Structure formats: C-alpha cells, structure tokens
C-alpha cells in the first residue's frame, strides 16, 4: 500500500492478491472495482448470489474470466444473483416465465371473449344492446385507478366468496385473480365490434336462410373472417400485459416467485439500489425485459400503428 500526495488530496494505491478457488479458470482478468470506504473484502462470507450481500461487496461480482463474460457479466448476474428465498430457484427466469404465462393466457381469453361480445354487439339484435354498449363506452372513460379500490376487495374476498368453492379463500397473490379480473377488456370488444360492423350483411344471410344457428354463423363464418383484427389484438394484448404495471402491483405482492417481470424489475431496482446504485444488472434486466416487445414491434410494426388508431377512437 502506498500513499502519495496528489492535487487536492491523497492518492492511495492498494496492492492486493486475488486467489481464485473456484472451478472456472480466470485467465485474462479484466477488473472493474469500485471500493467503498472501510470495506473488508476478506471476510465476505455470504455467497455472491445472496441478495443480502448486494451493495456491500458488489465490486467482487465484477471479476470475470475473459472478455465476453466481462462484457455480458451484468446479464449473467441478473440471472445468477436473484434467488428466491423460499425455493432457491433463479428469480429472473421465473419472472420471464410468469409474464409469458400471463400474457399468453390473457391473449387467449381476450381473443375468444372479445370476438364473441364484439359479434353480438355488432350484428345481433337483442334487448338491452344499446344500454350495454353505452355502458361499455362509459367504462372506457373511467380510469383504472378509480375502480381498483373495489376490485382489490373483490379479489381479496374471492369474488363474493365464489373462489371458496374451489378451495381458494382469496384471489390476491394468485394468477387466477389476475386472469379473472382481466378476462376481456372493453377496448378489445370495441375493436372487434368495429370490425364485425363493417362486414357485409349478405355473408350472414345465406347461412341464416339455410337454417344455421347463431353459434354456427359465428364460429363457422364470421370468426374465420376476423383474422386481421384478431392478429392486431394478439399483438396489442400481449404488449399490454407484458408492460402492465399498476394492477399486478396491487394484486401480486408476495412471494417474489410470483411476480411478473415488471414488478420483478421494481424488485431488482430495490435490491441493487439498496446501498449505492449498482446500475449494471438493473439496466441489463431492463434490456432483457424490453426485448420481447421490441422484437414484436419490429416484426409487426403495422399492427402497432393500427392499435393506436383503434384506441384513438375510444376518447
């Protein structure tokens, strides 16, 4: 150790020795150490993947073997260092899986139920149609932050106790809660209604004359025609669920295993930002979580544009 007076202070040079006891050979070792004051590295007893250690001995985590592991070190850390306290599984992968699961389920329910409701509202005559549609429009105007107060309670009580029939006392912290409360959005129904309204009446009439029931007409004739809006709806719903933040934040609070990716990222920020901000893994996680929608966007640009103009009509 050497101290030299320097401009406006003191430059201290430390010399230390690294002993690699792991199995991986650290051949060329690029190092990036930020050493907090009065830090004892020697006695760091916690394993590197323990969240409690983050922010205390973070600098050691940057030691990596070779250039590539160094460059992508933060990405590896995101997966390696976030472990579930209860199951010991890697959290980040779980979060990605959860988000995928939620997004896919929501896409499926939305496609089915939105086209059903959209078709009924667009092409069938029944009592209360105008009223239901007006109600739909009204519901699109009221912000989510108004109704979530009651929705939270509804899920807490298991939808008026109905979930008890399945042996589940509360739907908070469950995917069932998220799925049931988000079966189908009003705007998706609106999009499908707009589409079905534009189809010519002759399509339906000939089938009706042959005596086909409403269900046959819907499933055999109308639904196959609805591929373009269903495609747009798939992309938009997937993106919407993948990015959803507010409602999952309310419903899923613990355990960390069940978080979707957005809430997981918030968790990540808290973990790595606890002492001093360790931005590497936070930004790596951020990038990974943005990747699917970016890919979707590049592949299906047109749908995104349509989507805005669709949601634009809701105003």
């Amino acid at each position: 150790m050497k101290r030299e007076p320097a401009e406006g202070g003191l430059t201290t040079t430390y010399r230390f020795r690294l002993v690699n006891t792991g199995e991986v050979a650290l051949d060329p070792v690029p190092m990036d150490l930020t050493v907090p004051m009065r830090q004892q590295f020697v006695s760091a007893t916690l394993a590197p993947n323990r969240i409690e250690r983050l922010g205390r001995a973070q600098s050691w985590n940057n030691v990596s073997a070779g250039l590539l592991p160094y460059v992508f070190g933060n990405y590896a850390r995101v997966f390696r260092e976030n472990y579930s306290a209860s199951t010991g599984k890697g959290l980040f992968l779980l979060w990605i899986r959860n988000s995928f699961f939620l997004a896919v389920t929501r896409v499926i329910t939305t496609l089915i139920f939105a086209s059903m409701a959209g078709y009924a509202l667009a092409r069938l005559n029944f009592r209360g149609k105008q009223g239901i549609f007006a109600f739909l429009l009204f519901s699109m105007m009221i912000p989510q932050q108004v109704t979530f107060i009651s929705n939270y309670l509804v899920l807490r009580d298991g939808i008026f106790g109905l979930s008890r029939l399945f042996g589940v006392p509360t739907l908070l912290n469950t995917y069932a809660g998220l799925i049931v409360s988000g079966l189908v959005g009003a705007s998706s129904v609106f999009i499908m209604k707009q589409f079905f309204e534009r189809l010519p009446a002759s399509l339906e009439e000939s089938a009706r004359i042959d005596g086909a029931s409403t269900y046959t007409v819907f499933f055999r004739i109308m639904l196959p025609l609805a591929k373009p809006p269903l495609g747009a709806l798939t992309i938009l719903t997937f993106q919407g669920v993948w990015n959803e933040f507010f409602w999952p934040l309310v419903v899923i609070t613990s355990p960390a295993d069940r978080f979707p990716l957005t809430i997981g990222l918030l968790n990540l920020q808290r973990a790595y930002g606890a002492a001093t901000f360790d931005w590497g893994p936070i930004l790596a996680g951020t990038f990974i979580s943005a990747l699917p929608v970016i890919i979707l966007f590049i592949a299906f640009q047109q749908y995104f544009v349509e989507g805005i103009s669709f949601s634009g009509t809701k105003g």
Partner: protein
Amino acid sequence: MRRASSKVGEKLAPYVLLAPFLFTLIVFFGYAFVRVVYFSFTTYDLFSKPEWVGLKNYVNIFRDLDFTRAMKNSLTFMVVVTTAQTIIALLLALLLNQKVRGIRFFRAAYYMPSVASSVVVTLIFIWFFQRRGVLNFVITKFKEYQAIILLFLFAAAAIHIVLVVWEKLRRRPVSVFEPSFMFLGVLIGFIVAFGAVRFGFLVPREVPPVDIIWFNTTKTWPDFLGSLAFPIPLGAIMLFNIWTTAPTFMLLYLAGLQDIPRELYEAAAVDGAEGWHIILHIIAPQLKPITFLVVTMGLIGTLQMFDQVAILGSQAPRSSVITLAYYIYSNLFPSSAVPRVGMASAAAMFLALLTFIIVYAQRKVLGEEGENA
C-alpha cells in the same frame, strides 16, 4: 325454417356470447364504480365495517396537504406535458412525412420508447437523471465546448445564408432549405471549428461538473412563476414523459398527414403557396380532428400518471412528485398507517370527475368541428 326447439337457444344466443364480457364489465367495472361512490361517503379501513359519514371525506381531502399537492402536481403535469408532446408530435410527424430513403427506419426508431413498458423506460430515466448521470455529464460537456459549438453553428448558418442569398440575387429558383447548401455549410462549419481548436484560437473551457440534483430535492422551477412553479423532480418526469409519449401521437399525426389528398398539395402549388403557407392553410385544418384526439388522449393519460412516481419511490421527496393516482394508491396501501379507503375513494371520484369533464368538453368541441367539416 328454423326448428322450434332451438328458438329459445337462438333468443339466448346474444347473451351467451356476451356473458364473459358482461361478467367483467359488471363485476370489475359497474359494481366497482358504485362501490367506490359508496366508499367515498364512508370511513373504512379494509377490515372493520364501513361507517357512513356523508360528505366528510370530500371536505377532508381538501384539508389534506398531500391531496392539494397531488392535485397541483397532476394538473401542472397534465398541462405542460400535453402541450409539449402535442407540438413535438406534430413537428416530428412533419419531419418524418418526407419521402426519403430509410424513413421507415427513423419512424421505427422514434417510436421505440413508446413500445417498452413504463418500468423499463422509467428505470432508464432514473439512471439518466442521476446526480453523476448521463444528463449532467452531457450538460457539463456542452458547457465546456460551448464556444466551439457556437462557432460551428454560426459558420454553418453563415455559409448557408450567403449561398442562398447569392442564388436568389442571381434570380435562380432555390429553396430556403436547399440540402446541398446545408451540407456545404455543415462541412465548412466543421472545418472552421476544427481549425480553430487545432490552431489554438479556441480551447474547451474549464467548467466545474454540473451537479443538478434531479430527484432528491424540494426546489421548484422556474422561480419567477412563484407558487405556480413546479418541483424539479416533477419537471424531470415531465421531460422524460414527453419523450416517451410524443412518438405515439407522432404516429397518429403521420397517419393523418398521409390521408391528406395529393390534389390539395397540387392545387396549393399551382396557387404558388409554399413552406409555411402550406402548413398553415392546408395541413393545419386537415389535422384538426387528430389534434383534438391527441390532446384528449394526452390529457386523460397524463392525469392518470402513476408508474413513474411509484418506481421513483423514495428517491424523490413525496410532496414533489405525488400525483392524484398515487395519492389514491397510497391512501389505500399506506406504508405505515391504517388504510383510508374513504379518502382514497373521494380522491378517486375527483379523478373520475376530472376525466369526465375533459372527455365531455372534447366531445362538445369535436362535435361542432365535425359539423363544420
């Protein structure tokens, strides 16, 4: 020809098809809305039974300093962000409506921040606005090289203007923004600036690193506005929010611009209109409905701002960033107190009312516009 036995089934069919949607609509919207209205007249802590208190909550929220702050923050945020993002979206759209090679790439690139989730962009934003972050670094660098940048801009503009004036004097048809002149101007400006540095006429200034604290501060800006000035952390969120939402509206404008029939431009060209005249007298009236749409969506969206505040968390003082939506949330899930559902509901009703007024006003205006068109 229909069989009699299926008649009942046919009658019920619409309701069967609508059932799942009606379920979510009634339970998670209708019931929820009515219940929030009811809660707003009660005191309730999520556990014991709600107690009817009449209008007390509505009086109390106005006595709550947090609520008035949230109200002020939300409204400031709404006005500033909506105005700025509408203007920027329009300018971007005009810029990207060019028929230039690779314009699709630029459109996609500009739209990118709008695709990612609010958590993603907010985390990047927090990183960007750190005390030793990217933004402060860029500002520092800009201050250091200020003189050189100014010299470059000045030289480039001067060359460009001289060339344009020269051509005009010789009565040659030339656009004010002739690209080849612009290129020449930039090139010569660069050479001049580079030379000035190389031969020591200008040196980067020594400036202390810019040290603006963006989040952890209760300061407000700008000073001359007095009590109307907004807190700096909120200003940071505004800057960022404009950047992420303007592209969405840019796409709407772009679609509108491409809907304008070519004949209009051609007719204008015949009449000798150019530049600003085209924008003012042809494009602007055609884009009016879209502008109304963009403004309404902007107003409603900004009024609901929540994610940024929640993700920022304890990094910024609560009073500087709290919004209506966050006020509702934090009253329902306070970190260390009994949940105040009544207060939250009253505030929620307030938010709903504000949204409603905006939508209604827009309908009124848009309706009248529609008749004129």
